[in-house]
């Protein structure tokens, strides 16, 4: 039997500029004015995928995991023909439907009924197919009463249910799914997971991207682990998921420079080491939202001055989570150590990067080191059955009670 998906040496290059949402003539003109004679530099190139090859046999359900930015979504976009690869080739021996988002193309002014036809067509269903499945979709979505109401009046729950219901009734030979379980309430998530299982049992080939390890483990026999655009591992799901969780892949939780001459810094400061550890003495390299963290820096101060450190925590998506400053202290020449503690129940599950600044007299920046450490915080198993993404930049545990009055 021939593989239904054959991926041969796929690479995808983005120019960083292409990630910008859009240009105007003015931007192009000012760029031109700034550097009329310079050729486009290669510095802004970025390989989202590097030499990816794998094969999938018909009927297999494959999970794809990896950190944010590892290339998961880019891979799905190439397989669904939304964007072409820069090099390499893919052969798909079956009709493909991609579900990178539920509700693609929904129009708020149109009714539920009309949106079923619109969204169905966008996802690649024929009109006759939609007619056949119409009742099933409506029943699955539990919206029969509101079928002729414009979807702009739907609650977000109803909207999601309808959107997923349409998607769940696609019957392609290959289904590509990206992170659709991250929405909706508990009941609906269970239903979705059930539907996904049903789909995979019908002998359809599914590629399933998720951050939700439980969902991956319950659905997929084999899993691909992507790291920095490359396949790090491809094998039985349990093995790959454990590897992913235990190695803190791609994280830089410790850096040391023993020789002052090579250490990062300048005439004022040289950094000796930076590390982030589990403060609870569990010695886990896996950090969760329940792990208290300790960040330690050692540095040589080369000129007597009043110094303080400033630590900025960035999420991988580039939003600033917080900026903390240390006490300011008059330092002689010598080796110093600085410790910052992040308590448990503060950070949300995400991938982070730390930027470190050295400041003189509380006002003058004398050295900064971007991205000195990076680490990832995992979610923990929660009570109840809700697996959705816990939203928010931070996830503090606050006093929040219910009392009898």
């Amino acid at each position, binding site marked *: 039997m021939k593989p239904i998906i054959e991926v041969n040496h796929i690479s995808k290059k983005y120019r960083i500029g292409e990630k*910008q949402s*859009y240009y105007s003539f003015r931007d192009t003109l000012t760029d031109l004015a700034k550097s009329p004679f310079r050729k486009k530099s290669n510095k802004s190139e970025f390989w989202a995928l590097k030499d990816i090859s794998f094969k999938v046999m018909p009927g297999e359900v494959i999970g794809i995991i990896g950190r944010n930015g590892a290339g998961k979504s880019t891979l799905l976009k190439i397989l669904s023909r*939304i*964007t072409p690869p820069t090099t390499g080739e893919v052969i798909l021996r079956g*009709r493909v439907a991609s579900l*990178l988002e539920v509700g693609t193309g929904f129009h708020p*002014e149109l009714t539920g009924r009309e949106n079923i036809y619109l969204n169905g067509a966008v996802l690649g269903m024929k009109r006759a197919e939609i007619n056949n499945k119409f009742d099933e979709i409506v029943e699955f979505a539990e919206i029969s009463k509101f079928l002729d109401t414009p979807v702009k009046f739907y609650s977000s729950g109803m909207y999601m249910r309808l959107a997923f219901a349409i998607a769940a009734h696609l019957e392609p030979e290959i289904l590509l799914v990206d992170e659709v379980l991250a929405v909706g309430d508990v009941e609906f998530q269970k239903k979705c997971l059930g539907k996904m299982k049903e789909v995979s049992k019908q002998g359809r080939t599914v590629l399933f991207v998720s951050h939700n390890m439980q969902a991956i483990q319950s659905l997929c026999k084999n899993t691909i682990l992507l790291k920095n655009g490359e396949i790090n591992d491809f094998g039985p799901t349990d093995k790959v998921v454990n590897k992913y969780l235990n190695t803190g892949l791609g994280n830089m939780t410790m850096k040391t420079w023993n020789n002052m001459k090579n250490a990062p810094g300048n005439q004022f400061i040289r950094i000796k080491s930076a590390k982030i550890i589990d403060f609870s003495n569990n010695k886990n390299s896996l950090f969760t939202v329940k792990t208290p963290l300790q960040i330690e820096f050692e540095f040589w101060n080369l000129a007597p001055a009043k110094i303080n450190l400033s630590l900025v925590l960035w999420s991988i998506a580039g939003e600033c989570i917080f900026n903390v400053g240390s006490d300011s202290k008059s330092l002689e020449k010598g080796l110093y150590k600085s410790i910052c503690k992040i308590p448990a129940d503060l950070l949300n599950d995400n991938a982070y990067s730390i930027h470190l600044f050295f400041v003189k007299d509380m006002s003058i920046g004398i050295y900064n080191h971007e991205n000195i450490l990076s680490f990832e915080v995992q979610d923990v198993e929660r009570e109840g059955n809700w697996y959705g993404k816990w939203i928010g930049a931070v996830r503090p545990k606050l006093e929040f009670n219910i009392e009898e009055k």
Partner: protein
Amino acid sequence: METNFEIKIKPIKTNFYLNFKELWDYRELFIIFAWRDLKVRYKQTVLGISWVLFQPLVSMVVFTVFFGNFVKIPSGNLPYPLFVLCGLVFWTFFSNTLSFASSSLVSNENIIKKVYFPKVILPLSTVITGSVDLFISFVLLFIVGFYFKFTPSILTLIVIPLGYLISFLTASGLGLFFSALNVKYRDVRYIIPFFIQLLIFLTPVIYPTSIVSSSSKFLFVLNPMSAVIESTRGVIGGNLSVDFLALGTATLIALVIFFFGLAFFNATEKFFADII
């Protein structure tokens, strides 16, 4: 599940033609997009579909008052209201199609980023919306024509389909070009209204070509809409002859514009999802 179905995904596949087989495969989506645009168009408006009638009617009245009565632009053997309405029916079709097509990719950005389909159906499907309007405008035109006691000549049956074809090719050619450009440069959104305004003055919509000095007449030869509008006036006024040379030239130029737009569109299409 053994199928002979096979898709190959390769890095760059630029072709400069319409892939008719693929378009045929996606015909239902084409129709759905057109249906959606029609359906959504006059939602939450009091007058609803009658806007289609009001637009040319109001323009006709305004132009008649200002250019017919105040400026006294000559309108040949036709009364000015009928004269200007003849210009407006195809002109409105042309300018609406052009502006809807130009924004079609950007306004469907979320779909382009999430699903594969031949993008060319987005600008092309906007033609359907315009065609419905055009049909209604023609009904209005005939009524106004009869009111002024003009009977369209038999040649109307040739001029209208040909005019439709020429306006369609020109508008969608320019629309394909601008919609693709709009993906990268949002300036297009601001340029289009000016472009259309400029074109209405370069096209004999509110004045006849007869008042233009012969040295500037070449501009009308290059503009396919001129021939369309002038011939429409002829046949609505009952003329039994049509300048087929002008219409033929216009068809040729319209084809050139269309294939230029299509080539530009196809050459840039593969990057749409990355930069939109």
